């Protein structure tokens, strides 16, 4: 995991934090380090454990999708007074049929990936379940952008 940029601003007591992370394609040695860092950051801020767990699961699934299915990308953690936002933006190849990708059990993971324990096709549905608000934007040949919001 590589923390790329950190921004902390406190304006009139209003908390605003942004952290960004760089994720490399197929870098299984660092798998989970982004989600782990996000989890630790939230714990330090004293966020409730129920929310932390939901953010951790969603972040981990998001991070693994970037590692496994994309050419690499970035993840962002944004925290303000009302909400926590996780954003992932990768460098493609994009998803041909997003509706299909959202279905439980749908996966294009190879047998090699499945041997590592991924490819149940449960990642995107898991992210949606954990979130208060979930957006996915993708098409073949383009970036996949995911935005996951958790209300505080």
């Amino acid at each position, binding site marked *: 995991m590589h923390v790329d940029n950190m921004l902390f601003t406190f304006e009139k007591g209003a908390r605003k934090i942004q952290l960004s992370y760089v994720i490399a394609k197929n870098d299984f040695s660092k798998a*989970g380090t982004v*989600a782990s860092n996000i989890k630790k950051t939230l714990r330090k801020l004293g966020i409730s454990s129920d929310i932390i767990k939901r953010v951790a*699961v969603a972040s*981990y699934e998001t991070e693994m999708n970037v590692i496994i299915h994309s050419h690499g990308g970035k993840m962002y953690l944004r925290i303000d007074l009302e909400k926590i936002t996780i954003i992932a933006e990768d460098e493609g190849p994009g998803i041909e049929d997003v509706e299909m990708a959202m279905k439980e059990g749908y996966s294009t993971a190879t047998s090699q990936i499945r041997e590592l324990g991924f490819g149940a096709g449960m990642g995107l549905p*898991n992210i949606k379940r954990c979130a208060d608000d979930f957006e996915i934007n993708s098409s073949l040949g383009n970036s996949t952008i995911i935005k996951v919001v958790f209300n505080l």
Partner: protein
Amino acid sequence: MKLRDIQKIINAKVLTGEKYLDNVIKTAFACDLMSDALTFKEDKTLLLTGLVNPHIIRTAEMMDISAVVFVRGKEPDEETIKLAKEIGIVVMTTENILFTCSGILFMNGIKGAELARR
């Protein structure tokens, strides 16, 4: 049931986390795919798996699961143990197969974990 009692009844060897063996376990689930694990609700939960790699430990970390049992005599590599030690997760390994382990635990009052729903 305390982890040290679980260790005895499933005949397991503790690979890391000796100091947490007084932690209590109420529920368990068994699976070999990370995202399947990530659909469960943690409630003093034990994870049983035949898959041995550091990703299992990461998955446990995200879910606040405090103990993992590798079945069928599978021994994790150093990296897996190191990560578990760092996070503070108990890791055990047993010669018993998944079915046998699950059966023993169920007979001793450990219940299946519930799915997380919202």
